[in-house]
Each structure stands twice: as C-alpha cells, then as structure tokens.
C-alpha cells in the first residue's frame, strides 16, 4: 500500500500543518511516512502545498507525480493539481472558497464547506482542521483516533481548549464528508 496526498492552499490556511498532522498520525501507527513541503521561491508567491506519502513499505520518493488524494483549500490549488490525480483518486475541496468546476473526469470530488463550518464553530482559522477531518473520512489512510491524537501532539497539549476545539472541527469535517460518501455509495448501489 502506498498512498500519496497533496494538501494545497494559500499561505496562512495551515496546509503544511495538515500534512504534518497526518504524517504524525501515520508514524504513530508505525507506518512508513514522508512529508515534503514546497519550499524556497515557490512559497513566496503566497501558495503553499505539501505532499504526504504513507506506506506499508519503504517510500522512495516523497514527491507525488500522481497523488491518490488532493485536498484543495482554494481555486488555484484545484486548478494546479486536478490533472495529476491518479484515475480513481479523490479531490477534497473546501467548497466555501473553491467555486471553479473540476475540469476532468475519473476522480471523485468531495466538497466540504470547510471555512463555513469552521466559522459556525467559532473560528474561521480552523478550516484546515475541518478539511483534515473530511480527508480522514474520505481516505481512511489513518484512523480517526490517531489523527485526533496527532493533532494534539503537533499543536501542543498545553492549550487544552485549542485541542478540544480542533477535535470538534475535525469531527465536523469528518461527519460532513462521511454523509456525502454515504450518499455517493447509495447512488452507486
């Protein structure tokens, strides 16, 4: 098993943090994992992305030329990465901000209004956590519980309220995506 995911958005949306959380969760599940951020001049333009590879075997390249999953937090991310997703793969979009149409077939799009859900919960900034929950529901590459633990570990256990809020956000995203998947499955059935 080798699963590659690209998390992409603009600077400040916390996409790198999403990647670190998923990578930490995978590490704690004793899986092989690599995390690779975009760096240098590339990040100066205001966009950021990172690639997380998770596998039961050694991972050769931490880069993804054809990822299984893309989490797109904004329009440029969808436009940039939609065409390299592996056929049969998924793109999870933050539909609060992504309003361009997916320009290809052969992949499944899950639309989760991450920013709106986060705002309802009381902190727009936590859209990344909502989307992280959605990603976990779609990919099942790490368990929900280890993701929650990893978020606590990465964001610091000291700020208990923040951790609890993040868990709420992850859960909300997770539930939202789960429902959509259920609908999709019932249509297919």
């Amino acid at each position: 098993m080798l699963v590659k995911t690209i998390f992409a958005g603009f600077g400040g949306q916390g996409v790198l943090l999403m990647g670190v959380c998923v990578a930490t969760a995978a590490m704690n599940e004793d899986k092989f994992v690599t995390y690779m951020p975009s760096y240098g001049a590339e990040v100066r333009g205001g966009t950021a992305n990172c690639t997380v590879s998770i596998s039961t075997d050694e991972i050769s390249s931490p880069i993804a030329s054809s990822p299984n999953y893309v989490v797109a937090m904004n329009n440029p991310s969808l436009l940039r990465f939609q065409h390299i997703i592996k056929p049969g793969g998924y793109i999870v979009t933050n539909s609060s901000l992504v309003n361009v149409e997916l320009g290809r077939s052969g992949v499944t799009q899950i639309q989760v209004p991450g920013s709106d859900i986060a705002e309802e919960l009381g902190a727009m900034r936590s859209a990344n956590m909502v989307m992280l929950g959605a990603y976990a529901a779609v990919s099942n590459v790490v368990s929900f519980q280890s993701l929650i633990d990893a978020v606590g570990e990465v964001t610091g256990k000291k700020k208990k309220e923040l951790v609890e809020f993040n868990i709420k956000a992850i859960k909300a995203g997770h539930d939202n995506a789960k429902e959509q998947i259920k609908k999709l499955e019932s249509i297919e059935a």
Partner: protein
Amino acid sequence: MKNKEKRLMRGSEAIGEAAVRAGCACYFGYPITPQNELTEYMARRMMDTGRVFLQSESEIAAINMALGAASTGARVMTSSSSPGISLKQEGISFIAAMELPCVIVNIVRGGPGLGNIAPAQSDYFQATRGGGHGDYRTIVLAPASVQELYDLTRKSFELADEYRTPVLVLADGMLGQMMEPVVFNDKEILPEQLPDKPWTVKGAKDRPSRFIRSLLLDVDVEEEQNWRLYRKYQRIERREIRHEEYYMKGAELAIVAYGTAARIAKAAVKRCVEKNMRVGLIRPISLWPFPYEHIYKTAETVKHFMSFEMSTGQMVEDVQLGVKGRAEVLMYGRPGGVVPTPAELFRVISRAYNKIAREK
C-alpha cells in the same frame, strides 16, 4: 506514542539535532536556500543549550570561524549549499592540511552558477576530490533518509575527531526539507563530556607553547606531510567504506546510486524484481572512501552496471574505476534539479535490461 524517542523530523532538523546530541559546541553559518532551516534550527538549539551560534558575514568567514573554533578542540559544524560550499573550499583545504576535525554539511542545489534551489547531486566531484587546492580528501557521507541524516551526521563528528579531518555530509534540498520519523538510538554527549584533545591551541598553560600551521616552505617537509596525510587517507579507505546492497543476489544489472537517487532507484529496482528482472542496487553510503573494491568484486559476476545520478554523470567515473573494465558501465542522469520518478527510471532500466538480454 509508543516510542518516546521516535519523532517526525525535518531532514535539516535531524542534522541539527544530531550535531547537538554529538556535543557540537559551535555552529557558524550564512543564509542560503535550501539549507536555511538548518541554520535556523541551530540558532534556536545552540542558544537554548548555551552553546555558540554565529551567523557570519559570509561562507568564507563561517568556515574560518569553524577552523578557529576547531583548533580549541571543540566539536564544530558549518553548513551551506553548493555556491556557498564553493566559497568554503579554501578553508576546507586549510582544515585538512592543519588536521582539524570539522563537520561540513552541503545541502546540494542545482548548478553550476546560481543554478536553482532544487535537489541535485552535481557537487559529487567537488566533494569527493577534496574540493579545494592541494593533495587531500575529505570523508564524504551521503545519507538517503532523515534517519540517516541523523545517524551519519552523528557519525561524522566521531570520524572527524578520530581522523582529525573535515567530514562532509552531502545531502540535497529534498532530504533537507522532507520529514520522516527518526529514532534516536544513541546517547547524548554534552560538549564538556568530550575528552580533551592533546593538540589544541588554547593557551600554553603548564606546557610549552605550540602552533598549528599548514605552511611548510621546505619541500622535503611538505612532501613528508603529504605522504603522512596520504597514509591517513589510506587508513580511512581501509576502514571507513560504507555501502548498502539491495536485491544484488543473482543480479545481472547493478544500479549504483546514492542519496535521493538511491531512494528512487530502490523503488525502480523493486518493480524490476517484481517483473522477474535480475536487477539490483548498490548504494554507496560513503562517497569517499568509495566502495571500489566491492564494485570490483561484484563485476566478477555482474557484467552490467548503471550509474544513476541527479547530474550528467560524475559518480559514474568512480564506478568505472571500481569495475576496471570488467563490466559495461551505463549512465542515466537528470541534472539541473530534476528529481526523476521511479516509473521513469524503471522504463530506463527495463530498456537497458532487455537490450542486455537480447545481446546475450
């Protein structure tokens, strides 16, 4: 967490943490992408631990500060990326000549010139042939994972002390930037726990004064010093060769690759093996000393080698030196900062392998 010491770490941080845990007392550096994370990590950690961190005015100053600090017996490190490493070469030559221990990290980027900041392996010649002026070598270690960045950086400090010679850790932007789990299998040493070195210049207290120099105007004396260094390098060549093998048993084609390229090669070789192709991988971990002897022995039965590098072909010359005409040596390279995919390399290997099979 099951294992308390297992940490998801960025490559550059793993290098820095290895240095700290090896008892590195002084770090000198100058900003250059893609190794800034290492300098920044050292700034934080060295200040936290009350050790010396100094951002110098240039790479030239940094290597010479390292030279000065090393002369006191302290474990020292400096780091940079390709153009900055070029600037350090004069200093590295002096450090080798003066027989001072020093760890130098090169997070290689695309070149020549300013090139770009993408991962590359084009500094192989510079690293393995001494790099600066004069008859000398530096030990060169080429990690291929974040765990190895940690382990081999730690090892570098020991090798530098043992042989009183500069040790180069050769990585690239991909290894430096990526995160992977790291397990600390070692015991941390504090700078003050390191044994005193008998050759330092810290002031002639209760002993005659001494000096450290590289200027030897008498040609006979300089010649003897060169032979002395040469004998040391021979000792290193006998004792410090490191390499790894992967599916080499029964292989007919041996891929030779190091660092990031070796990771990609591993995946490609695995696919080859799954398709019943007899392909294996030799991964030099020490680039100098290079595993010539091992390659020579391998070439007794393996008649085809392929050097795979993120350059137009530099290590291939060492593979040829190892093979000594016993086998064919092919080359596949992607310079300029391109990181080839395992699929691409798989296609290249398949073509070569099928050609070999047809000609048999």
